[in-house]
């Protein structure tokens, strides 16, 4: 469970996150959407401390994660993060990408890590690419490896920061499919995404953000059928037009 209590974040004078108070339940799939610059990426990056916060509190499983003395590496090891730009390690094969952290952090022996990595690559449909280097993979394949790499640490929460935004349209589906499967397995997920189809089908709840605030939240049914805030109405209208 993630609990945000009056979270504030500034970049200089710019108020990037404005008093966010919310919670994400266990096994919940949350989609965060909103126009660019709305603070949604900043928000998701504060959840594993890729970004600091300037005020308020974020608690995960009861632990104040931005408190002094928190072991940030241990925290991150339990939270998977998937980047827009995949960020696979180019000098390692797909398999080695998925083995590095578990082996280095002594979560598994090399043999166990290899077995687990193969299993995960199989889950994302890329067992046959285990020995390929990232350069030899398409964008969609790279992102699926990146998801497998994050899962290799057996996280209890998965964060997705616009995982399909850097992909060619024909590759979006394969990545979303992996995310759907993950959601079905009961993973707690926070997904920043513009994929409204995914939000409609998979999300338990949606947050709509603009100007660093959550302006609207609700089930996909309510949000799509009956948006309240003018910004949300505008946002959905723009989406439908495209």
């Amino acid at each position, binding site marked *: 469970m993630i609990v945000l209590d009056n979270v504030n974040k500034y970049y200089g004078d710019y108020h990037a996150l404005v008093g966010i108070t919310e919670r994400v339940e266990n096994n919940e799939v949350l989609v965060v959407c909103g126009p660019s610059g709305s603070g949604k990426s900043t928000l998701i990056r504060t959840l*594993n401390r*890729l970004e600091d916060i300037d005020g308020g509190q974020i608690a995960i499983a009861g632990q104040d994660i931005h408190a002094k003395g928190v072991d940030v*590496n*241990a*925290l*991150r*090891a*339990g*939270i998977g*993060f998937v*980047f827009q*730009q995949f*960020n*696979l*390690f*180019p*000098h390692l094969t797909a398999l080695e990408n998925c083995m*590095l*952290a578990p082996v*280095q*952090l002594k979560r598994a022996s090399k043999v166990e890590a290899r077995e687990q990595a193969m299993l995960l690559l199989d889950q994302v449909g890329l067992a046959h690419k285990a020995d390929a*280097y*990232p*350069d*030899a993979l398409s964008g969609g394949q790279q992102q699926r490896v*990146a998801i497998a*790499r*994050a899962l290799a*640490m057996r996280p209890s929460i998965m964060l997705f920061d616009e995982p399909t935004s850097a992909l060619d349209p024909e590759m979006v589906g394969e990545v979303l499919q992996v995310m759907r499967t993950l959601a079905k397995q009961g993973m707690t997920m926070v997904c920043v995404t513009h994929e409204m189809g995914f939000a409609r089908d998979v999300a338990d709840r949606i947050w709509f953000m603009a100007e660093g605030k959550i302006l609207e939240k609700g089930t996909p049914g309510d949000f799509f059928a009956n948006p309240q805030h003018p910004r949300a109405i505008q946002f959905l209208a723009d989406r439908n037009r495209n």
Partner: protein
Amino acid sequence: MLELIDTYWLYFLVGQYPDGPLGGLVLTILLSGAALVLAMPLGLMLGIARVSRRRAISLPVGAFVQLVRAVPLLLVLFWVYFFLPAVTGVKTSQATTMLIVLVVFDSVYLAEIVAAGIRALPKGQLESARSLGLGYGQALRHVVLPQTLRHGLPSIVNQLVSTIKATSLGYIIGLSEVSFIATQINTLVFTRAVEVYLILALTYFVLCFGLSRLAFLLERRLQRRPAGAH
């Protein structure tokens, strides 16, 4: 010229060894190699310190790097050879002096290569390594440095080439490296300076050009395996 080589090749190669200290081309190569091998770990550490987010570390290292880069090697050679013994009371041999100076210079230039490589790597690499729970040191060792060093290989070989050429400055303090030996030979035969120094130049050229080619081939081979984010 052949006759010249025939007479003096051994002297050219090893100096007065085994009757005197090792010198000549072998000393030049040994010094350069040893300097680079010793400077490599130092350069890595300095390079990493240079990009440290802690200013107490990055600032002094940065100042040291800038200082060394702005001073001629020859001057430092003088200092270490003439000044240091006066302070410490310990007289260092020419070879040791040269080695110290080369290690200082190499580590500073290698530090710049390493630091530039780390800065050039996309930010997402370090970020994704850290997001998996790896510590900064682990992320450097397993993600950042392997890519940095592979990209930096041509620059590192460049540095070795520079080092080989820099050993010739040892001539000034009477270090019997290959340039010094060539001068000795020139004094002995007296009338054939052009040939003597041509042979010396050719020797440096073969050594340095050979190394560059080797690095080029190595680089191409590494490129067959993808080397980094493009």
